[in-house]
């Protein structure tokens, strides 16, 4: 098994033991590391370097838009056909949906006591919505009204 040679520094590095200053290897190393002295933006060949062909530096990044897939709908990432289908589906669902009922605001301690009594009377663990509503109706006179601004 051949002995493994462990380098002290990369080829061309000025501190490497085998670097000849001014050699092609040394000059290549300098070229690759100019960016660290702010002489250029990125190393030659880097995907973000301004002189790399095909770089995406000018790609506009907007909120909600996948810059690599600008044909997709913003925020949802769906194709326009998918997005239209979802909108159609949601509109149909919303047309069939009901607004939530406004429940009477009654002190939970009072209401729970009344519901516990009803559960005990009916010998059940839980009341149905209809049975609960019947109890709430009987306590409607205790319900808080929507607030009114102070004149």
């Amino acid at each position, binding site marked *: 098994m051949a002995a493994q040679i462990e380098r002290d520094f990369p080829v061309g590095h000025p501190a490497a033991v085998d670097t000849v200053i001014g050699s092609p290897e040394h000059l290549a190393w300098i070229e690759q590391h100019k960016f660290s002295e702010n002489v250029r933006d990125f190393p030659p060949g880097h995907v973000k370097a301004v002189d790399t062909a095909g770089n995406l530096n000018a790609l506009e990044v907007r909120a909600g838009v996948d810059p690599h897939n600008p044909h997709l709908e913003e925020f949802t990432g769906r194709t326009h056909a998918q997005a239209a289908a979802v909108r159609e589906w949601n509109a149909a669902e*919303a047309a069939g949906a009901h607004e*939530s009922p406004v429940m009477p605001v*009654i002190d939970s301690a009072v209401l729970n006591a009344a519901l516990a009594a009803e559960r005990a009377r009916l010998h059940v663990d839980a009341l149905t919505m209809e049975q609960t509503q019947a109890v709430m109706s009987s306590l409607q006179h205790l319900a*808080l009204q929507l*607030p009114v601004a102070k004149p």
Partner: protein
Amino acid sequence: MPRALEVIAGFATNPGATFTALTASTGTSFTVRNTDPNKAVWLLDAWAFNATAGELRIRSTKLHDFQQGIRNRITAALSVPVQGGHNNSMYAQRLYAQDALTVELTGGGAELDTASLLILYEDLQGASGRFIDNAFLKANGLNEVTIEVTVAAVATGNFGGAVAINSTNDNLIANTDYAILGGMTDTRGDTVGITGIDFSNLRLGFPAEPSIRDTTMNWFQALTFGYNTPLIPVFSSANKAATTVDVQTNGAGGTYIVNLLCVQLQPGKVGPGLTGAAVAGSAQPGA
């Protein structure tokens, strides 16, 4: 101390670049409920759901100023908190009984834009909820359980599609208390609401934002941490049929699968009106 938590919401139709006062969703009002003036009312959080970026402005003559007040940029299609500072330390805005808040939005010129405010009443006579803190939760929690429901929202800017928490899976243990730590939604909207007898039929809520599930999943627990006061709601499974989940969103409607992260509590530990330390008149809730 009959403490109550309530989320109130509203919508603006085609506000465009003009600040437009929100129309309160049915059953809610931007006027603060009447309380003993010595008992504090707090604006804990606020968020908005705009299809087009805009501004949410909350102002009142009783708050800092009536010109701009609490004014925050709302980025498009992102229902995240813009007031209070959810997670870690939070700062609540003091509100005043019967004060009519002016809540306005700018946004798109051809859309319904929506916003919500989360309000804590330290002592609301005639209504109370059961709220615990994290220490109580850790001492009395038994098992995690997830409640999953599917809500079909309406497209009017009101809360809609209310379904009972046992409508999908009826797996809660009978006559058992459950703490709601928070919840998650798979679809973007303005607010997920939770209404129930154990909250005096006042609606609790969190942002319907699927991209911040790590924030909403323990929303009430985080509020409890941030404000250092009990804000984790507790309900009894005996009231499961009358404890509902609904959604408020914009004119696009939508179908929402909502998960509520709950913890089963030891029986008989959470009494009526249990809310922790009295904080009336303090500088901040929990202070």
